[in-house]
């Protein structure tokens, strides 16, 4: 309960809000995993569990006019942006009430109003889209900044290099956030990256760089904020590498046998949710407040599940809709 927290502790309230978002992401995804295992969700389902602090912290550094470009692992980013979870769950279920009307699925959440510019399924392809959105902000002399999430695996594809170079030469207001969870599917970073520290690649494009651990949500926010402000001042892009870990496999179909139990356990010690909760308790927030918050979130997620289940599939008439846009 907010009321039990001393009013002057703004940063605790902030952390509590971050905690809420992180728990919402986790519970949402746990529900999604359940739905997937009983066949209610099809296709691929890439979970963000373990990485929540990155999305929540980064997106907290933005204004509503800033843009977010995401990958196929987009649930966490979408929820952190405040997209309605009913519509997100419905999208996973392939329902007409989904955020992309059921045409997108897990990998393609879009919300134009929230400046949530999509989950994109081609590794790294969206990095140049982000440069393009930032290009448009500069072109239109708007003050928006674009942030773009991707994995360390994506840092090896041409689009990454082209996107960074273009953003650099044109000083575009964009922040590239590499969520390094140390695996691209089953490929560990040391087998894919000639230089393991992705942020060093910023040097090649003469742009600012940063490298942080991703288990502490407020720290992520503070670092991303510096980069966002730099971009907003017209000083160009930043490449931030955030070290993190996914507790699940690459997708639901991946048992993640390429890594050891010990490794997983050592990262679970650094669970960002656990960390935030501990900090809140240490700051005097009663545990039962947090339990109650967790409970509220569970109810919310259950509701979204029910909403998704009960929503109708898109009408067949939608099949040929939106292949082309309406006339201008």
């Amino acid at each position: 309960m907010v009321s039990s927290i001393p009013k002057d502790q703004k940063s605790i309230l902030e952390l509590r809000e971050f905690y809420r978002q992180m728990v919402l992401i986790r519970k949402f995804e746990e529900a999604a995993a359940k739905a997937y295992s009983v066949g209610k969700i099809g296709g691929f389902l890439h979970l963000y569990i373990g990485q929540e602090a990155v999305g929540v912290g980064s997106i907290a550094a933005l204004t509503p006019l800033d843009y977010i470009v995401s990958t196929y692992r987009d649930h966490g980013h979408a929820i952190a942006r405040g997209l309605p979870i009913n519509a997100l769950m419905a999208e996973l279920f392939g329902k007409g009430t989904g955020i992309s009307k059921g045409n997108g699925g897990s990998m393609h959440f879009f919300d134009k109003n929230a400046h949530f510019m999509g989950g994109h399924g081609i590794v790294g392809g969206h990095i140049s889209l982000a440069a393009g959105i930032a290009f448009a902000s500069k072109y239109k002399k708007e003050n928006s900044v674009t942030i773009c999430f991707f994995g360390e695996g994506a840092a090896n594809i041409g689009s990454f290099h082209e996107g960074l170079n273009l953003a650099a030469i044109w000083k575009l207001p964009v922040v590239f956030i590499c969520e390094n969870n140390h695996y691209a599917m089953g490929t560990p970073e040391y087998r894919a990256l000639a230089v393991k520290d992705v942020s060093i690649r910023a040097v090649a494009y003469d742009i600012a760089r940063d490298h942080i651990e991703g288990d502490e949500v407020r720290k992520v926010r503070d670092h991303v904020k510096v980069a966002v402000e730099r971009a907003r001042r017209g000083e160009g892009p930043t490449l931030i590498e955030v070290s993190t870990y996914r507790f699940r496999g690459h997708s639901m179909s991946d048992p993640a046998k390429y890594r050891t139990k010990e490794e997983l356990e050592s990262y679970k010690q650094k669970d960002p949710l656990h960390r935030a909760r501990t900090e809140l308790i240490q700051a005097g927030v009663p545990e039962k407040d947090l339990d109650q918050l967790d409970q509220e979130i569970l109810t919310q997620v259950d509701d979204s599940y029910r909403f998704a289940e009960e929503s109708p599939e898109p009408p067949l008439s939608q099949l040929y809709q939106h292949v082309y846009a309406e006339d201008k």
Partner: protein
Amino acid sequence: MAILTYREALNRAMVEEMEKDPSIYLMGEEVGHYQGAYKVSQGMLERFGEARVIDTPISENGFAGVGVGSAMVGLRPIIEFMTWNFSLVAIDQIINSAAKMNYMSGGQFPMPIVFRGAGGVGGRLGAQHSQAFESWYAHVPGLKVIAPATPKDAYGLLKSSIRDNNPTIFIESEVLYGVKGEVPEEEFSIPLGKAEVKRKGTDLTIVTWSRAFLFAEEAAKELEKEGISIEILDLRSLRPLDETAILESVKKTNKVLIIEEGWPVAGFGAQIAYLIQKNAFDYLDHPVERVTQRDVPMSYAANLERETLPNVERVIQSIREILK
């Protein structure tokens, strides 16, 4: 009526549209300071400045993506590929991003972008610089594919493409850039998806587009001397496709030859042949025939290239066989 080259007509279309709408910009390699690799953007940098006529490094996938991203938030980019051969490096952005954005977002993101540049075969440019990719892009729902044959069409269709809210693949013919033709002085546009009967005839229909139209015209003139009357249907647009115009002409002449610069296997002509047999089978007096490029990469050797390309002689020979 002004006499313009195909190149000048394209230039005029872009200039006029950009003057009206500040959200349109032109981006690509050498479009600005160099005035365009094929001089299609001649003078545009001076007119619109570096903010709107933007030179890029060699990074097709990157700047195609920039175009798509910027179109998501309301700009109307014209992305020039120096030639369509290099578009293959960007095909991911064209197909996986541009063509699908509106659909996979449930209609939230129209994609008012034009990808344009030089296409076509010939000129002894060898295997990697001499290819026709219309069929590749026409395969993809969500894209519109335009390939004009005359300066007038180039002008009118480019204007419509720029105004369209969908991703347009606008394939210019490298060989046609210097070809002159009449273009009305007053402003006009030509709707996408409307074929044109460029020559009326009664004995056989040639269906074609882009530069192959010239082969058709020459063959028709040649055969006219023998009293053979050829109708030429210039599709101009492969997607959307003017099926009605094709069928109307087939019903009139009962014989069809398709000419295209691309390869035969899974070529666009195969799709047209399918449509005709499906919808006008009873009207056909002869199987639909095609003249295409030979089914090989392009050779540099002059004789082998000549052998590979569709040409007037092959068109005439094919028509004679059909009419026999």
